[in-house]
C-alpha cells in the first residue's frame, strides 16, 4: 500500500468527525442568528443569514478538517501505537530514497499497522461546547420569539404629561398609552404612542389605556365636538377604543368637571390618497411598419398599495371617412412590481382586437388601490395608438384639418335615384299631370344638387345652395366653416369663368376645387354633366330616362369619394364690416332705461376679526377674558373654509381654559390670522394737503386762487 493510500485511509475518519463536529457546533449558532434576523428584519433576512452562515460554516469545517494531515497522522500514530516503534514516518517516505534498513523497518510496521482500525484516531465530539451552544441557542430563539412586539400584548404605560395641578381627592391622569391599530390593508404594524396626540391612517382603531391616581369613578374622554367616550375599567387601568373616521380633539376628563380642565389632545386622521397613474408611453404613438402588437406602459403609485389587477379600457375606432365604427371593451390586466409602485404593461395584439390600418386605438388604465372597504378607483390618462391609413399618409401632420366633404352630396344623389325609382313604381296610379309635376320636383332637387357641385368646382350654379333631402344635416350652420353671405344671383351660364366664384361664391379655400387633383376634377365634371342630363329628363317628366344618368352621376361621385379627402384651410370667419348708418334704425318701442340691481357680497369673518382685535393689544384689545362663544360658533359653521379648523378650535379651547395665558392668546391670534378673509377693494384714502398746499396745486394748474 502506498503512502498516500495509507494517509487517506487513516486520516478520513478524523477529518469526517471534525467536519461533522464543526457543523454541529455551527447549527445552534445559525438557528439563533436566523431567529434574531427573522425577528428584526423578516424571513428574507433570516434566510439570507442562514445561507451565508451555512457557507461560512462549511468553509470553516473544511479548514478545520484539513488540519488532519500527514504530520498529525505520524505524530499521533507514534504517540498511540508503541508497536509502530516511532517509525510511522517511514510509511510515507518515498521507497527509492530509503536505506535497506529503513525499508525493512517500513515493511515491519506496515504489516503491524492494520492491527487497529483508523477510527480510534478520530478526535472526540466536543460535547461541552455543543451543550453550551445548544442551550444558548434555545434561550436566544425563545427570547427572539417571545420578546414583546410593539402594539401587541399589554401596553406599557408612559407617565402622563397633562401638567394639571394635583388636588387631594381629585383623580388625575397618571399614566397613559394610545395604541394605534391601522387597518389591515395598509400593512402598517400596530404601534403604541406614549403621547395622547397622534396621526394615524383613517380607519385605524384607537385604543386608550389610562391610569388615574387616585382611582377615578367614571372617567371619560370628552370629545370637543361629539359624544363623550366612556372609559371601561380593566383592572387598575381604564380602557376605551374607537375607530378613527375623522380628525378630532379630545381631553381626558378624570373627574367629570371637578378639578382643573386638562389640556386638549389632537388625533389627526390621514386619509388614504387615491393612486397616481403615470403613463410612460407617449400620449400619441403611430404604428410602425410591420408592427403587430403594442405595449402601453403605466406606472401606478399609492401610499399603501395598488391592487394587483387593473382594467384596461380599449376603445377602437376602425374605418375611414364617415364609415368609422367605435367599439369599446375592457380587459383585465395584472401588474408587476411592489404593491406601492406597480407597473402595468399589457401587450396588446392587433389581431386580437381587429385593429387595422386607418384606425385609432385608445387605451385607458382603470386602477384601484387596496383600501377596504370601497377601494378608490382612478382612471389614468388616455393613450392613443394611431395606424395611419395607407391611402392618406399625408394626414399624419395635419391633425384635425382633414374634412371629408363629399358624403353629403353623394347621399343626396342616391336620394334622387331612390325618389325617381319610387315615382316610376307609382306611375300607374298617378295622373299624368301629377306624375309630371313630381318628376319636375325631383328635377328641381337634382338641379340644386348639381348647382352645389358646380359651385364646388368653381362653376356656375342655378339655385339656392340648400340641400333638399334628409341629409341637410350634413352641412349646416355652425359646423366649423363659413357658409358665405347672402343668396347668390343666378350665374351667367354654365361653364362661366372660374373667377365668378371668387366674386359671388363661397370659397372654403382660395379655390376649393383647386385642392383637388385634375383627375378628380374631371370625374366631378363628368358627374355634373350626368346630373345635368338627369335633370333635363326629370324636368321633362321622364324619370325612367333620367335614371341611367343619375346612376352614372352617382358612380362618378362614388369614385371621387373613394379617391380623395380634401383639405380645408383653417381660417377665422371674416365678418362683413359694420355699417354705421344702419345702427339704431330699428323699432325702439318699449326700450327704456333699466336699473340693474347688484347686491354686495357680505363679509363673513366678523367674529374672527372681532376676536383677533380683542386678543391683541391695539385700540380694541380686551385684556380680561374674551367672549369666545361667537367665534366658536363661527368656526364650527365655516369649518370647511378654514385651513385648519381643528387647530383653531383647539386654540380657542386653550384660551377659554386659561384666559390669562399670554402664549395661548398669541397662538389663537396667529390661528385667527389664517382664518380671516382678505377684504378687497378698499384703498387707503389719501390725505388732503393744507390750505397752502391746495393753493399751490391750484396755482401751478393755472386755476383760480
Amino acid at each position: 500500500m502506498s503512502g498516500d493510500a495509507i494517509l487517506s485511509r487513516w486520516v478520513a475518519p478524523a477529518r469526517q468527525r471534525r467536519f461533522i463536529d464543526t457543523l454541529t457546533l455551527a447549527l445552534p449558532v445559525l438557528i439563533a442568528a436566523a431567529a434574531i434576523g427573522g425577528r428584526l428584519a423578516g424571513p428574507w433576512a433570516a434566510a439570507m443569514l442562514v445561507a451565508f452562515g451555512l457557507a461560512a460554516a462549511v468553509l470553516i469545517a473544511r479548514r478545520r478538517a484539513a488540519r488532519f494531515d500527514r504530520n498529525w497522522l505520524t505524530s499521533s500514530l507514534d504517540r498511540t501505537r508503541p508497536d509502530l516503534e516511532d517509525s510511522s514516518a517511514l510509511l510515507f517516505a518515498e521507497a527509492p530514497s530509503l536505506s535497506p534498513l529503513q525499508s525493512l523497518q517500513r515493511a515491519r510496521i506496515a504489516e503491524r499497522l492494520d492491527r487497529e482500525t483508523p477510527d480510534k484516531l478520530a478526535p472526540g465530539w466536543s460535547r461541552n461546547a455543543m451543550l453550551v451552544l445548544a442551550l444558548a441557542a434555545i434561550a436566544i430563539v425563545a427570547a427572539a420569539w417571545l420578546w414583546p412586539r410593539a402594539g401587541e400584548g399589554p401596553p406599557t404605560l408612559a407617565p402622563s404629561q397633562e401638567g394639571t395641578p394635583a388636588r387631594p381627592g381629585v383623580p388625575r391622569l397618571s399614566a397613559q398609552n394610545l395604541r394605534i391599530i391601522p387597518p389591515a390593508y395598509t400593512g402598517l404594524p400596530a404601534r403604541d404612542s406614549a403621547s395622547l396626540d397622534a396621526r394615524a391612517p383613517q380607519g385605524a382603531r384607537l385604543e386608550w389605556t389610562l391610569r388615574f391616581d387616585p382611582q377615578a369613578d367614571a372617567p371619560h374622554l370628552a370629545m370637543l365636538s361629539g359624544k363623550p367616550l366612556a372609559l371601561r375599567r380593566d383592572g387598575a387601568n381604564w380602557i376605551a377604543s374607537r375607530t378613527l373616521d375623522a380628525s378630532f380633539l379630545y381631553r381626558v376628563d378624570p373627574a367629570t368637571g371637578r378639578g382643573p380642565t386638562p389640556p386638549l389632545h389632537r388625533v389627526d386622521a390621514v386619509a388614504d390618497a387615491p393612486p397616481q397613474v403615470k403613463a410612460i408611453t407617449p400620449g400619441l404613438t403611430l404604428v410602425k411598419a410591420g408592427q403587430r402588437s403594442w405595449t402601453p406602459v403605466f406606472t401606478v403609485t399609492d401610499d399603501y398599495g395598488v391592487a394587483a389587477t387593473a382594467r384596461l379600457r380599449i376603445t377602437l375606432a376602425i374605418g375611414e371617412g364617415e364609415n368609422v365604427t367605435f367599439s369599446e371593451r375592457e380587459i383585465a390586466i395584472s401588474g408587476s412590481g411592489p404593491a406601492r409602485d406597480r407597473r402595468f404593461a399589457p401587450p396588446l395584439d392587433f389581431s386580437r382586437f381587429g385593429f387595422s390600418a386607418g384606425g385609432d386605438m385608445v387605451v385607458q388604465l382603470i386602477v384601484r388601490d387596496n383600501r377596504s372597504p370601497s377601494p378608490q378607483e382612478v382612471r389614468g390618462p388616455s393613450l392613443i395608438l394611431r395606424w395611419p391609413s395607407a391611402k392618406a399618409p399625408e394626414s399624419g401632420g395635419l391633425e384635425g384639418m382633414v374634412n371629408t366633404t363629399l358624403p353629403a352630396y353623394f347621399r343626396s344623389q342616391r336620394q334622387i335615384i331612390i325618389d325617381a325609382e319610387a315615382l316610376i313604381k307609382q306611375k300607374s296610379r298617378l295622373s299624368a299631370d301629377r306624375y309630371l309635376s313630381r318628376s319636375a320636383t325631383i328635377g328641381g332637387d337634382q338641379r340644386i344638387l348639381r348647382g352645389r357641385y358646380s359651385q364646388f368646382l368653381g362653376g356656375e350654379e342655378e339655385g339656392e345652395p340648400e340641400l333638399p333631402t334628409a341629409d341637410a344635416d350634413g352641412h349646416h350652420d355652425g359646423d366649423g366653416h363659413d357658409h358665405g353671405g347672402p343668396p347668390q344671383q343666378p350665374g351667367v351660364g354654365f361653364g362661366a369663368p372660374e373667377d365668378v366664384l371668387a366674386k359671388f361664391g363661397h370659397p372654403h379655400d382660395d379655390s376649393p376645387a383647386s385642392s383637388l387633383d385634375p383627375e378628380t376634377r374631371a370625374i366631378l365634371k363628368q358627374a355634373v354633366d350626368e346630373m345635368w342630363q338627369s335633370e333635363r329628363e326629370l324636368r321633362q317628366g321622364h324619370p325612367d330616362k333620367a335614371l341611367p344618368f343619375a346612376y352614372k352621376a352617382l358612380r362618378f361621385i362614388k369614385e371621387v369619394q373613394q379617391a380623395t379627402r380634401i383639405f380645408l384651410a383653417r381660417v377665422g370667419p371674416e365678418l362683413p364690416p359694420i355699417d354705421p348708418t344702419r345702427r339704431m334704425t330699428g323699432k325702439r318701442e318699449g326700450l327704456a332705461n333699466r336699473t340693474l340691481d347688484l347686491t354686495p357680497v357680505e363679509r363673513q369673518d366678523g367674529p374672527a376679526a372681532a376676536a383677533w382685535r380683542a386678543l391683541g393689544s391695539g385700540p380694541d384689545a380686551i385684556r380680561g377674558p374674551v367672549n369666545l362663544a361667537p367665534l366658536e360658533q363661527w368656526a364650527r359653521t365655516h369649518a370647511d373654509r378654514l385651513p385648519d379648523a381643528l387647530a383653531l378650535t383647539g386654540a380657542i379651547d386653550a384660551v377659554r381654559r386659561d384666559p390669562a395665558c399670554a402664549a395661548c392668546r398669541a397662538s389663537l391670534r396667529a390661528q385667527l390670522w389664517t382664518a380671516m378673509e382678505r377684504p378687497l377693494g378698499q384703498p387707503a384714502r389719501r390725505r388732503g394737503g393744507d390750505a397752502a398746499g391746495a393753493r399751490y396745486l391750484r396755482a401751478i394748474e393755472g386755476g383760480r386762487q
Partner: protein
Amino acid sequence: MTIRLIVAAILGLAVLIAALRLLLWHRAAGEYASLTRLILLLLLQPVCALLLFLGLFPPTVSGGSDMLRVASAGAPRLAATQGGAPLVALPGSDMVGAEAVPDLATALRRHPATRTIELLGQGLGPRDLPAAAGLAVRFTPPPLRNGIRYLATPSPVSPGAAFPVGGTLEGLAEAKVELIDPAGRVTDSAKPDAQGHFTLSGTARAAGAAEFRLRLRNGDPTMEQAVVPVIVQDSARPRLLIMAGAPGPEVKYLRRWATDAGFAVTTQMSAGGGVQLGDPPVSIDGATLRRFDAVLLDDRSWAALGSRRSALLAAVREGLGLILRPSGPLDAATRAQWQALGFVLTGQAGLAPLALPKPPAAAIARTRAGIADPDMPGDLTLPDTLLPEVSRLAAIPAGADTVPLLRDAGDRPLAVWRALGVGRMALFTGVDSYALTLTGHRLLHDQWWRALLGAVVRPAAAPPAIEGVHWAGERMTLCRLTDDSRVERPDGGAARLIPISGCAAFWPASAGWHVLRSKDDATPFYVQPATALPVMRAARDRDATLMLRGDGSADPKGEDRPGAAWPFLLGWLVASALLWWLERSRLARQPTRSTR
C-alpha cells in the same frame, strides 16, 4: 446783572454803615478803644463783603482744557489710557477709568470750559444731541456692524391691502430677508440689491394692529429679527361713479368689485340711443360730481361726454379723482384729447398682449389670500397655469408730470397718474382686466384697481398716525394732543400726558403696542424693545452726530459759565469768624487792664 448790582450796592451800603458804626463805637469806647483793632475791623469788613459777593456770583473760571472726550455707546473700552483731555463716559458705554455722567449736559456743567468735544463710539443719541449743539464736535464714526441698517415701517393700510416693507442692509450682500406674517408663515422673501436695499410685500386682513416680523438670514441661521408693526384701519368708503360707453364684462366686474368692497357705486352704461343701464341716470355737472369721490370713465363714454368734459375737469380740479380706461384701441380724437390732458402715449395705436407679473410661489400665494369664499373653492383663488387674455394699449403712457403707478412684467408703465388742481387723474392702459378675476388672478385685479383708486380718489380726513420707529427707554414726542390725552401702555396702565402747545414728551418704558387715547380717538403706535434693531439705532445716532459736526466748527459763543463758589464762601466764613472774634475778643484791650 441788575441782581448783581443790587447785591453789590446793598453790600457796599452795609460796609459803609458797619464802618460808621465802628467809628462811633470806637469813640464811645473811651479807654477801651484800640486803634489796631479798629483798623483791622475796618479792613476786614469790605473783605468779608467782597467774599460774600464772590460766593454768590462766582467769577468765570478760566484755565484748564476746553476739550472734553466723551465716550458714547460702542466706544473702545481702553481709550481712557490715552492721556489728554478729560474723559467722560455716557450711559451705554462700558469705558473703564472714565468719569461716568448721566448725560452730556451734566458733563458739560461739570466741565464748563468745554468748547470742543471729541466723541468716541457710535455717536450721540437724541438725549444728548441738544446739549451738544453749539460745541465743536470731533467725531470719526466707526464702521457699522452688519445688520438691518434701516427699516421703513408701513404707514397705516386699509383692510386687505398689500403694503410694502422697505429697508436697507449693512453689509450682507448674500443675505436673505423674509417677511413673516402674524401666523408665522413666510409671506415674502427677497435678497438685497447692490446698495443693500430690499422691498418686501405683505397683505393686511381686517382692521386692527398686526405684528409682522422681518427676519434676516445669512445662510441658515437667523441674524436679526425685528417686529414690523402694521396698523390696519378703515377709512371712509369712496363714492364711485362708473361710466361705460356700452355694457360689457369689464364694467360688470368693476361694478361687482366696487360693490363688494362696500363703495357707494353709481353705474351708468349706455346701451345706445339714449338708453342707460345700471343705476338711475345722473347728470354730469359740478353739483353732482361733488357728491362723488372718483369717476371711472372709458374712452367711449369720454367721447360721449362732449361738452360736459369741462364740468368734469373742473370737478377734478376741486379734488375729484378721475380714472380713464380704454375699452379697446383708442381712436385718434380720444388719443389726442387724452394727450392734451398730459398723458403722452408713445407707441403705435392698437392693442398688444399684456404680460402679467410673475405670480408668487404657491406657498407664498396662499399666505397672501384670505380664506376661501363660501361660493368659490379654495383652489380657484390661487393662480393656476391658465393665463388670462388681458391686453393693453400698445402705446406706453408717459408725460412730464405723470407718475407711473402700475407696471407690467416688462417693467413698462401700465398706469400713470397726474395731478390736476387739487384732484388727480389716472390713465389705465389695460384692456379686459376682468379676465384676471376669471382665471384665479382676482387678487391682482384687486391690487390694480385698488392702487388706481387709492392714487386718485378725493382726499379725505384720515385718522392720525404716529410714524417712525421708537425704542423703549427713549424719549419720543407726541403731537396733536388734547388736554385729556393719555397713553395706554401694553400692560394696560395709562400715562397722562402734559401737552405744551399740543405736543408732549413720552418715555416708553416697555416695548409693545401703546395706544394714544383722547376723548374720541385712539391711535396705536408700536415701541420696539431697547435691544431691537441695534444697527439701525447706531446708524441713526451716527448720522445725527455727523450732521452736528458741521455747524460746531464755528466759534462757540456761549455765555460765561460761573466758576466754583465754595472757595469764596469758605473765605467769607473764615473772614466772618475772624471779624466776630476780633469784635468779641479782649485782645486789644488787654494792655490797659494789665496796667491797672
